């Protein structure tokens, strides 16, 4: 397997994520452009123009190119699993120079910036194992402004799902224009504190407009979209009809005494791209 070639693949994966938004997000923004008027329409118009320019120039659509975050599904029959982490890390270093992306990793104690988007525990990689011999890597570069609006609620189980809904709506109204709305909200319900936040972030991987398979949960997603949009916060918090493009919920079973709610907030730049590596080392970026 040619590690150097795969590192190039990682660079292409990151470039795709940073410069081209997925079609589902663009479609949702175009829909928002149609329904908005005034200042809100101007904001969505600027976003759409920005998306067009980023694709045309190959420049990252947002200067905050995020913390490099990857969700990796490793086929258990893939031959060189031990090389994947170093390939991803080297790819991130190369991407920092080649694309370029902003050097965004700072030591929390010393303030030192590695200037290559790597450091302790970053790039942040989540590993899952699956059948087969392919590796699927999803890049989700995550910006700081929206990440700062993440919340963990360790609710009393007695408040029930109504309490969960109220928590989410209240937090999104409190966040107002700060996470660069219209946002996509990922909600993890259940598990423990860490799992609920993880599920919230994983929920962001689902395309905009796709509902949870569980009909009851799907209804709650729709209700939350309506309630948050009724706030009138609007694009960039300047007022309007579109505060969220979508709300995605994932769940885990919980401890009887706990009702954790993990809220992961994604800005309109819901950057996602996917790379598949086959067992012979060939790859493609989608």
């Amino acid at each position, binding site marked *: 397997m040619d590690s150097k070639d795969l590192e190039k693949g990682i660079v292409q994966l990151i470039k795709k994520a940073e410069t081209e938004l997925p079609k589902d997000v663009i479609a949702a923004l175009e829909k928002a452009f149609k329904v908005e008027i*005034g*200042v809100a329409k*101007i*904001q969505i118009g*600027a*976003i759409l*123009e*920005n*998306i067009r*320019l*980023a694709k045309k*120039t190959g*420049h*990252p*659509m*947002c*200067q*905050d*190119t995020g913390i490099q975050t990857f969700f990796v599904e490793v086929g258990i029959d893939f031959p060189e699993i031990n090389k994947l982490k170093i390939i991803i890390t080297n790819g991130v270093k190369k991407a920092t120079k080649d694309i*370029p*992306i*902003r*050097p*965004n990793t700072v030591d929390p104690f010393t303030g030192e*910036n590695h*200037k290559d988007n790597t450091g302790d525990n970053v790039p942040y990689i989540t590993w899952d194992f699956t059948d087969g011999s392919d590796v699927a890597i999803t890049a989700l570069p995550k*910006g700081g*402004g929206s990440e*700062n609006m993440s919340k963990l609620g360790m609710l009393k189980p007695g408040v029930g799902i109504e309490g969960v809904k109220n928590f989410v709506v209240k937090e999104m109204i409190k966040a*107002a*224009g*700060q996470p*660069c709305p219209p946002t996509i909200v990922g909600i993890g319900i259940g598990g423990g504190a860490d799992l609920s936040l993880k599920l919230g972030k994983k929920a962001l991987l689902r395309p905009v407009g796709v509902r949870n398979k569980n009909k009851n949960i799907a209804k709650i997603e729709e209700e939350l979209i309506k309630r948050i949009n009724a*706030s*009138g*916060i*609007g*694009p*960039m*918090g*300047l*007022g309007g009809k579109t505060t969220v493009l979508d709300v995605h919920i994932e769940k885990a079973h919980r401890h009887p005494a706990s009702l954790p709610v993990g809220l992961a907030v994604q*800005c*309109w*730049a819901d950057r996602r791209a996917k790379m598949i590596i086959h067992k012979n080392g060939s790859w493609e970026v989608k």
Partner: protein
Amino acid sequence: MEYRFTLPIKSEDIKKLKVGDILYVNGKIFTARDEAHHFMLEKKSIPFDPSDMGLFHCGPLMKKVGDKWEVISAGPTTSSRMEIFEDKFIEKFKINLIIGKGGMGKNTQKALQKYICIYTSYTGGAGALAAEKAEEVENVFWLEKLGMPEAVWIMRVKEFGPLVVAMDSHGESIYNSN
């Protein structure tokens, strides 16, 4: 109303601007995030005069090509982080145009009235669009000390916008009216 201005904007023009107005500006702007605010406030003198420039809350992505810096992506950063510095910053550096996103707090609002200044919102995340409107990077200060996002970058921009007047010099805020 939509306006086009060449920076610096005259004080009497700042007074005319109201929440919801849209601006496009030509001229010089400088970037400053939390660390640059802190740093500039502590220094006795600084090597440039910010009073004829717009203050841009931004940590840009830049690339050096030959001996010139190029703007790759440069949207606004969350302004509320600068709230603890901004009233003092407006007073000390005599700026009258702030460009950011998400809005600012009461202390800034008071300073906007006192010193005849406006806070405008630029579309968050629109980094490629901003780069398109940046004609030239004129200078950079404290790059080694503060790093690329936190350094002070001075750039010349053309038709930079849309900037929405979000907090005006009369005490009004678009964020309160939603």
